[in-house]
């Protein structure tokens, strides 16, 4: 369910680090909690993201949820697919519906995040 090569936040984001770039999204648990997702608000490329700070929002039919950046760095890409097909976030939250890519400024921050096993336990208990 939760890929081993991802790291996870308490706010239900995931990040996959490859070299100096982190690709992030929201977890399957998060999309299930939100229900039908109808709108995704992402930062502009070039935005400086700070770990734990809001970088956008995801809206379901009923509610708005902030997205928090799992790591610090500069946003170098956003997933434009979500502007036209926000429902992809319900269908493939760990894959095609990634949110943004960040060029990491403090890669060591990743140590503060949860492993897949820890997140699984955390999300299950919540």
């Amino acid at each position, binding site marked *: 369910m939760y890929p081993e090569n991802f790291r996870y936040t308490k706010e239900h984001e995931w990040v996959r680090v490859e070299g100096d770039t982190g690709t992030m999204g929201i977890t399957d648990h998060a999309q299930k909690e939100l*229900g*039908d997702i*109808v*709108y995704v*608000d992402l930062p502009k490329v070039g935005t400086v993201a700070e770990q734990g700070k809001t970088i956008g*929002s995801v*809206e*379901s*039919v*009923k509610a*708005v949820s902030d997205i928090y950046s799992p790591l610090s760095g500069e946003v170098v890409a956003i997933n434009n697919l979500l*502007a036209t097909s926000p429902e992809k976030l319900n269908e493939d939250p760990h894959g095609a519906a990634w949110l943004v890519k960040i060029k990491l400024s403090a890669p060591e921050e990743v140590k503060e995040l949860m492993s897949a096993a820890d997140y699984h336990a955390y999300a299950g208990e919540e």
Partner: protein
Amino acid sequence: MTQPTAALKKTPLHATHKRMGARMVDFGGWDMPVQYSGVLDEHHTVRQRVGLFDVSHMGEIEIQGPEALKLVEFVSTNAAAKLKAGQAHYSGLLYEHGGFVDDILVHKVADDQFFICVNASNQDKDYEHILSHNRFDANVENAGPRYAQIAIQGPRALETLQKLTPVNLAAIRYYHFTDGTVSGAPARIARTGYTGEDGFEIYVAPGEAERLWDDLLAAGAEFGIKPCGLGARNTLRLECKMALYGHEIHSTVTPLEADLAWIVKFDKGEFLGRDALLKQKERGVTRKLIGFEMKGRGIGRDGYEVHVDGSPSGWVTSGGPSPTLNKNIGLCYLPAQQCEIGRAIQVMIRGEGVDAVTVPTPFYKRAK
């Protein structure tokens, strides 16, 4: 303050919702299903086929006695004297100052008997309010605990329910009701609803609710019936511009402001709030409820500020996606002189003004 889960009230169908895998939420102190298969799926199911809602959290107040009509006429805005036995109407319970205590459905059972359906979170307040103005020969009962309420809504609702009742449902006109049986249980069957589709609201004893729920799901299986939650109930009612207490209406909003002048019958004589409303009518209302449609990207949601010509002018009372129209819609209050149809407005979404335009309502009306 958040109450511990144990303190939440439960409907007679609570265990059924849990068993069937509904997602539950705290709704005004009640642990209610917000969704089953998903809000969008449930919404479309009601528009196209038939959906089943547990609305047992709604309250019921019964007024009986020789002067029952006088009491109802005094505490509510619509003309209850015009109702025939077996007929219902939408009405308002107002304070002296013209603001809403609640919005209600008044059913006339007999000349000396009225059955009022009220909002879940308001039932004790409404009961106390009516009781405090009861200087008539009438008895008021807070009857909520005696009733479960199930709404069956959608174009296939009649066919589904007809399988379970000897009552000729086609003969019940819109906003009429009859007492009969469903699945053998005594039931009050009203052709009313909160979705904009044809359908019925069924009042039964709490002990009958689970069997009735299961029987209705079985009867509607061939039409694709699905259990639905409060999420879809909200998107459905918003498309039809049906007011929701706490959003479009509350204690500081009057029916004239809320575009509900049609439920206020000034010529029926004295009633609570009449003087305040008459004054407001003479002076002219300063704000009005109006529909809008988002033009820019974003969803205007409940409580967001609305700007006109760059200045804060009002607020969104209910807003969200319209699954039927595939647009983002909402209702907002605006100054009366600024709320003509077609006016460009901006909804403030996370600090930024996003373009929207005022539009005619209801957003959706079913083909008859």
